[in-house]
């Protein structure tokens, strides 16, 4: 049975009047009820994509369905909440009054305001002016505004941007909490551990194109999966031996250790050979390719993307 989609794009493209191609033929599918991480380096096209999905930008080509309707249409907007780029509010109004303004635009009862303020832990500061808020408080007010409609789809653009470590932990916990009740969360980030910790599936975007999609585990497996980490001395002697045993591109020096791109089942034979040649092996273990490595591999030389 086909899984229902909260967000679906076909060939979505945005070229700005300056000539910059920010989003290039993007096909994105976010399933209902999942937390989807939209991952990419700065300038990859994440925010432009989210603006397109929110109806703030008009696409140059392609189409999208967001929460069951065209982006920016009242039917779509009624079912989605979004915080795109920076939380933008009226500096001379209090946090609570800013939410009253948002509620009025959305045609909502103001009775929704206090519960969302409580949910983002801003009740105590709600009477203070927005311009006095810290970055973390501004982010939380942005999330509160996005939650005001009780949306089925929540779009959050770099929600932990500018937060201190404690604020980041709290925001992640909030995002996990927001998933409860079948809500779909589309989260953009350039922080790898963030999506790893919060997202069910990840889409990696580079130069405006989706270059990989899947769970973090699937992406790791696709890119070659595991490697062996070997710590041995003397370093030069160990390097010469390993390069003679394996292809040079399979041996990478990482500090005072080696990362070997080989099948883990070769661990015993490699260890035996090193020891028999008088090399001391102090550590030999499975080293999963870090998400950082995978990210760099996908975004620095993305498959099917030129220029």
């Amino acid at each position, binding site marked *: 049975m086909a899984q229902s989609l909260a967000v679906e794009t076909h060939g979505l493209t945005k070229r700005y009047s300056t000539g910059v191609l920010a989003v290039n033929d993007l096909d994105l599918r976010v399933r209902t009820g999942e937390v989807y991480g939209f991952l990419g380096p700065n300038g990859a096209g994440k925010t432009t994509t989210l*603006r397109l999905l929110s*109806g703030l930008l008009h696409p140059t080509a392609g189409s999208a369905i967001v929460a069951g309707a065209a982006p920016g249409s009242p039917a779509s907007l009624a079912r989605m909440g979004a915080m795109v780029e920076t939380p933008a509010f009226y500096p001379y109004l209090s946090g609570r009054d800013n939410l009253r303004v*948002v509620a*009025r635009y959305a045609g909502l009862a103001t009775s929704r305001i206090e519960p969302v303020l409580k949910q983002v832990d801003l009740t105590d500061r709600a009477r203070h002016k927005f311009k006095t808020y810290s970055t973390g408080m501004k982010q939380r007010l942005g999330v509160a505004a996005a939650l005001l409609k009780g949306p089925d789809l929540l779009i959050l653009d770099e929600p932990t941007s500018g937060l201190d470590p404690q604020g980041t932990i709290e925001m992640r916990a909030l995002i996990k909490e927001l998933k409860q009740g079948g809500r779909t969360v589309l989260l953009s980030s350039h922080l790898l551990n963030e999506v790893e910790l919060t997202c069910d599936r990840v889409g990696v975007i580079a130069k405006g194109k989706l270059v990989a999609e899947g769970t973090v585990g699937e992406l790791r497996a696709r890119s070659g999966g595991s490697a062996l980490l070997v710590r041995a001395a003397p370093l030069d002697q160990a390097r010469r031996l390993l390069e003679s045993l394996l292809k040079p591109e399979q041996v990478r020096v990482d500090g005072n250790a080696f990362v070997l791109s080989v099948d883990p089942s070769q661990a015993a034979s490699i260890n035996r050979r090193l020891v028999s040649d008088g090399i001391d092996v102090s550590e030999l273990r499975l080293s999963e390719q870090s998400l950082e490595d995978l990210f760099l591999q996908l975004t620095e030389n993305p498959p099917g993307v030129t220029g």
Partner: protein
Amino acid sequence: MIASYRAETLKARKRWANWILFGILLAWIILLVYLVLFLVVTLQPNSIQGPVPASVLKRRLFPENFVPSVLSAGSSIGAAIMLIFGALSTASEFGWLTVQTILIQKPTRAAVLGGKWLLLGVAALLVSVAMFAAAALASYAAVTLDGSSSAWPAWEVILKGFGALLLQLAVWTTFGAFLGIAFRSAAAAIGGGLTYLFVGEALLGGLLRNTPVVKDVLRFLPGINSDAVNAAFPVTIRDASASTQLVSAGRGVLTLVIYLAVFTLVSLLIFQRRDVGGS
């Protein structure tokens, strides 16, 4: 649109800059249009140089002339204040990026702009009422303090004058709002608008008023048409110099209504089509 209007009223009501602007406008009318002139013609009548003696000039401050007085203030300081108000109300949304916060709520862009325009219209109406009330009170105070007598204009004249003021304030407010949307910058919108109002149109209208080619252009400018409308409400201490107006009052009203419609439609077109954010 009503939902957007309700949001706009909350924002406008709590913005101190708006109250300061309207305070300046009322203070200008009471202090500069009435009090200063009253003190000069009362305490130092000999300092008045010109063909009209101080005792006659004083009648300009009396109730019989409060309609032309308030219209005169409306087409100068009133126009400037409302232009700034309109520009702030739209350009600030781009400066603070709140335009994107608004547009990802439920209403369409047309409804958002409709709500904003409705607020600007209501503000122009309230400011017109306040200006008329302030001028009427000040003129009543002047005639009472002077111990003279002066008749109030006919209701018909007052109503027509009120309509003329409201139309002019609405045009300048809409002009400011249009500039705010076009430039997306409060400084550019206010700077450009005031430069046009006080330098462009005033210079052209004052210095080159009788130059044939320029005269044809001037006939289409909002300030010149406002002056023509105001000339239909002459002060009682001198004859109306209708012949100096480039267009008739009726043509002036029609031109101002067209400006109101054009500024509104062009603003809507820009707002509907424009991308919000990105480069």
